[in-house]
C-alpha cells in the first residue's frame, strides 16, 4: 500500500465508453490480490475534489526496452465513463502525471480449492474478475465466467478471459451478443448443473442481489465485490460502510467497504438493506 506519484503508459478506448489505462507502478504487483482496488487522483487540480476508486484489472511488466534495463512494472485499470471524473480520465494521455493509492482493501478469498468456480460479472463488474480468474486457474480450479451486459459493447475482454482458460457464457439484455436475457438466468442453470460450486460476483447492485438470492436458494457459497462511494479508501472517513448481517437500529453493524471489503462473503452482509437508500436518523458528522 503506497501513494504512487506516477505517469500513464497508455490509455485507450476498448469499447464505446470503456477505457483501459496502463500506469507505471514499480513494486505494485507483488502486494496486489484479485478484488483489491486503487484510489486514483484524476488530476492535480480541481475538479474533481476526491479520488475515484477503481478495481485492479491486472498487473504486469512491459518488455524491457534495452538490454540490461529492468522491465517496467504496471498496473492496469479498466473504466467506464460515467461522470465528471471518468470523463477527464478519458482525455488523459501517455506521459500524463497521475497519482494512485494502492493496492487497497481485501480482495477475493481463493483459498478454497475444491469444486468448480463460477464468476458472474456485469458490465464494468468484469474488471476484478480477470485477476481472480487468473488466480483461480493457477490454483487448478475449473472456472466458468458468466458475462452480462446491456449490449455487446458492455462485454469486455472476452478473448483475454478465454486465453486464461476460462469457459465464458455471454448474455446481453438486447441479445446483441450471446444469449438474450439476464446473466442470472444462466447462473441458475449452471448451479443446477454444477451444484458443488463457489460463486464470485461483481456488478450493479440489482444483479448482485439477484445472484445472492439464487446462491441462497442453491446453498452455494458466494463472494461479492461491492461499490460504495468512497472518500479516503483507507478506513479513515467511514463514508463507505455497508450494513453487516444482523444489523438492527438497536445493535447496528457497519462494515467499512474499503477496509473490510470491497469483497465480502455474502452471508456477512445485510441484504435487506443493500442497494436501498434510507433516511433514518439525524446526526452531526
Amino acid at each position, binding site marked *: 500500500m*503506497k*501513494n504512487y506519484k506516477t505517469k500513464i503508459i497508455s490509455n485507450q478506448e476498448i469499447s464505446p465508453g470503456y477505457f483501459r489505462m496502463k500506469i507505471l507502478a514499480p513494486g505494485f504487483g507483488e502486494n496486489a490480490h484479485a478484488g483489491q482496488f486503487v484510489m486514483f487522483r484524476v488530476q492535480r487540480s480541481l475538479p474533481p*475534489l476526491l479520488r475515484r476508486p477503481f478495481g485492479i484489472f491486472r498487473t504486469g511488466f512491459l518488455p524491457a526496452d534495452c538490454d540490461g534495463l529492468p522491465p517496467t512494472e504496471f498496473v492496469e485499470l479498466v473504466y467506464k465513463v460515467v461522470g465528471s471524473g471518468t470523463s477527464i480520465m478519458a482525455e488523459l494521455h501517455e506521459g500524463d502525471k497521475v497519482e494512485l493509492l494502492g493496492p487497497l482493501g481485501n480482495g477475493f478469498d481463493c483459498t478454497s480449492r475444491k469444486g468448480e468456480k463460477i464468476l458472474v460479472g456485469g458490465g464494468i463488474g468484469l474488471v476484478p474478475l480477470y485477476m481472480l480468474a487468473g488466480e483461480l486457474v493457477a490454483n487448478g480450479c475449473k472456472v466458468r465466467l458468466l458475462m452480462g451486459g446491456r449490449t455487446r459493447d458492455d462485454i469486455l475482454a472476452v478473448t483475454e478471459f478465454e486465453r486464461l482458460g476460462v469457459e465464458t457464457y455471454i448474455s446481453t439484455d438486447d441479445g446483441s451478443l450471446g444469449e438474450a436475457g439476464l446473466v442470472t438466468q444462466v447462473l441458475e442453470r449452471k448451479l443446477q448443473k454444477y451444484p458443488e460450486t463457489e460463486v464470485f460476483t461483481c456488478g450493479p447492485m440489482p444483479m448482485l442481489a439477484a445472484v445472492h438470492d439464487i446462491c441462497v436458494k442453491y446453498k452455494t457459497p458466494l463472494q461479492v465485490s461491492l461499490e460504495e462511494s468512497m472518500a479516503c479508501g483507507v*478506513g*479513515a472517513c*467511514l463514508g463507505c460502510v455497508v450494513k453487516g448481517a444482523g444489523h438492527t437500529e438497536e445493535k447496528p453493524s457497519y462494515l467499512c467497504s474499503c477496509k473490510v471489503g470491497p469483497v465480502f462473503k455474502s452471508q456477512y452482509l445485510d441484504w435487506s438493506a443493500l442497494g436501498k*437508500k434510507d433516511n433514518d436518523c439525524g*446526526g452531526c*458528522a
Partner: protein
Amino acid sequence: MSELKKEIVKRPDMSVEIAGIQLRNPVMPASGTFGYGEEYTPFIDMEKIGAIVTKGLSLKPKAGNPTPRIAETVSGMLNAIGLQNVGIDAFIQHKMPFLRTVNTPVIANFFGNTLEEYGEVAKRLNDIPEIAAGELNISCPNVKQGGIVFGTDPKAASEVVALVRKNLQKPLIVKLTPNVTDITVVARAVEEAGADAIACINTLTGMSVDVNTRKPRIANMTGGLSGPAIRPVAVRMVHQVVQTVSVPVIGIGGIMKAMDALEFLIVGAKAVQVGTANFVDPTAMISIIEGIEEFLVEEGIDDIHDLIGSLKF
C-alpha cells in the same frame, strides 16, 4: 531559491504552543479525516506532523448514519458519517497501543449525546496519560433541549464547556460550529467557561439532491460541507474569533496546500488542521509543512510567531 541561499539560512522555528502543548509545527489533521492515525501510517511519517487528532470519541460505540454518507459537491464534499466511532473503551484497548508508539502529541476529539456523557468522556480521557489534550466537539444536537445543537447556543455551549473543564485534567480545546449568526458570541462564552484553545470551523450544513432520483444525495438528507469551497467562510470566522478571544485559535476549513494554511496563520491562527485534503492526497500535511517552512525562509522570517497574526488591515 538558490542552493547557496538554502545552505546559509537556518531553518526557521516552526514550533508553537497550544494550550500548553508544545507542537513541532502548527499542522495537524482535522478530526474524522485521519481515523485513529494508524490508517495513514503507510503514507506519512507521523513524527513529522504537529499532532495527531483522533476521530470523535463517545462513551459508548456509535454506529453512525445510514448510507450513502458522502457526496462530492463543487470543490467540496458533504458528509453525514453520524460520528461513528469505536467508543472510548475500544479506543483505549485497540487504538492507543499504536498511538503510544508515536512521538507526537495526540489530541482526542470527543463528544457526548447528553451533557452528562460529555462529562463522562472527559473523565475517561484522564485515564490515558498519552493523550495530550481533549478537543471538545460541540457541534452535536443536545438531545435534552429538543435537538438544538450545543454549539449554536452560547448558554448551552458554556454549560458543556464548564462541565468538561471541571472533569478534564488536561488542556481543553473547544471546536466551534460555523452554523451560527455570530461566532464571536460562542467563542467568548466558551473562553469564559474555561477553554484553553478554540478550534474552528467544523463543517457548514449543506444538502445536495440527485435530480434523476429526486432523492437527497446523502441518506441523512443534510450533511457537513468541507473542502476548499468553505475556506473563505473559515478564514473569516477564524479572523473574527482571533479578534475576540485571547486563547490560541486553531484554523480549520478547506486547507489543501501551504498557501491556504498561510492565510489562516496570517489572520492569527496559531495552528491549523487539515481535513478533506487528507483524502485527496494523504501526503498533503507534509507538503503543507514544507511549504510553510519554505515561505518563511523566502520571507526571511526566523520564527513562525512573526508570521502569525501579521495581517495588514
